[in-house]
């Protein structure tokens, strides 16, 4: 089964099967779009939670931690309810579009990034903060130097966020619909394609997608890890 799947996977990629390639390409587009938005929200929130003490911080922190365990189908369902025709944002006509998929995935990845960022910055020695302040740093400069010290951990947060978005299926299946429009891929990703092919009994195709997905994740993580460890002595 698996050798066959590997052979199929390589055949599909190297023969340049347009359908397969478009699914791979689209998976990355959705995953990275969601990740980018999640990073823009999650990193600053995590840094804020890790560097400052304010009223209500503990409650906020609990919320972020709880959101790290948000079930994807629930995120998908809520997004679906909001975007459907008589939903709050129904007029925007976003349901079953790539945008809807991104909207559903951001709440899954952002808390993960915020939570890991917060934890890694809190774990830095208090002396760094005191020293930065003692040299005349503003709040922002202090946060910047702390984030810089936790650089590798912040990369880990981003990598975790990518893992969440690329491997996610529940939310994007509900909000995207796994659609081909006019024979062309519209909202189908590798994960939703695996679900479909398995249901149809096309196991070798499902396996091929699974293998491609794993390789894709591996390659992206090799790049991430290189960036994470760059500029260090060892």
């Amino acid at each position, binding site marked *: 089964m698996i050798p066959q799947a590997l052979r199929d996977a390589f055949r599909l990629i190297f023969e340049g099967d347009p359908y397969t390639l478009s699914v791979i390409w689209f998976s990355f587009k959705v995953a990275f779009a969601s990740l980018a938005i999640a990073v823009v929200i999650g990193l600053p929130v995590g840094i804020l939670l890790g560097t400052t003490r304010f009223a209500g911080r503990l409650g906020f922190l609990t919320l972020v931690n709880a959101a790290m365990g948000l079930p994807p189908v629930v995120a998908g369902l809520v997004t679906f309810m909001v975007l459907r025709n008589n939903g709050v944002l129904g007029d925007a006509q976003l349901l079953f579009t790539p945008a809807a998929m991104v909207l559903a995935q951001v709440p899954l990845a952002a808390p993960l990034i915020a939570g890991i960022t917060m934890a890694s910055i809190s774990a830095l020695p208090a002396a760094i903060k005191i020293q930065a302040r003692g040299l*005349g740093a503003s709040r922002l400069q202090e946060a910047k130097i702390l984030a810089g010290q936790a650089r590798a951990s912040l990369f880990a947060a981003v990598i975790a966020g990518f893992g969440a978005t690329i491997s996610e299926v529940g939310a994007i299946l509900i909000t995207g619909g796994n659609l081909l429009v006019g024979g062309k891929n519209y909202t189908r990703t590798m994960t939703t394609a695996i679900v479909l092919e398995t249901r149809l009994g096309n196991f070798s195709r499902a396996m091929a997608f699974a293998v491609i997905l794993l390789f894709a994740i591996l390659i992206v993580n090799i790049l991430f890890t290189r960036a994470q460890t760059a500029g260090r*002595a060892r």
Partner: protein
Amino acid sequence: MSILLEGAGLRRTYRRTLDLDVPRISAQRGRVLVIMGPSGAGKSTLLRLLALVEKPDQGQILIAGQPAKPHDLKSRRKMASAMQTATLFRGTVLRNVEWGLAIRRVHKRLRLIRSEEALALVGLDGFESRDVAELSGGEAQRVNLARALAVQPEILFLDEPLVYVDETMRESLALALRKFTLRTSCATVWVTHDRAEALGMSDDLALVSDGRMLQQGETMEVFTKPDGLQAARLVGADNVIAATITSNDDGLAKLKAGDADIEATTDLAEGTTVYLVVRPEEVSVWGAAPQDSSPRNWFKGVLAEVISLGATVKLRVDGEVPLVALITQPTFRELGVTAGDPIWAGFKATAVHVMRRS
């Protein structure tokens, strides 16, 4: 003399107990103020309050008479600190040393010049491109120092700046820091637990113990005239003798300590109970009863203990008035005594600091 930095009515409570209570402390331009005390005395806490890194629960910090608060960036930018744990930022030595200037938006070229200057000052010329991960503990601490010096602050805070520095470097570095204070006429606040460092470095000395300010004044004044028993112990006045003034003839007083007669110079009146503080280096010792009558205050005893301190020796003499003497090694060799031998120890009437006993 111009006071640049002042702390007034500083109090901080930690877990409901008052852990710092300093009614007044001040530092002047072009002078080194050393805050000395045992570990855990609250020295570093006091420094963090003065450096506007932490907020006191009560009291305020004044810079040139104007109140300053931790959120007040303009005031904080007049200061630079080198905290005790040399926490360097990841990257090169230069990146660390110029950081204080970079956050002040100083031009890149000037940053480099000042950083090189600061590194030269701490004896690390040419270390600019080294990765901080490759530095030894002592080198890291010197980079930590250079990082604060490069800012050329109006007020410089140093928390135990020489602890991890090699013995051979310590003296020249201490001298460089003094020179820096004079040249830039900044006010330097220097925290240490080390008595020799305090005596050698400071113009002014503040004694802190258990979160309380015991005494602040010019260094020699504090060392020779400690205010209270705790202060006396801190400055290393090993000899503290309880006595009562029996008569005072125009400043030359006769006192009784147990059965022993002592003479000392003081203005305190007859009948006052006092502590007599004598620094160990003011105590002389003889192998036989001294012939010449001055000093008047001498007592026969037994050499109880000999503590070698390298170039000097501390002798503990048990007798009518127990005394600790600090003499040089050659003097000790000449004396030719060992523990258990009879010995005579004494001090001049003018070497006694008389302190009212409360």
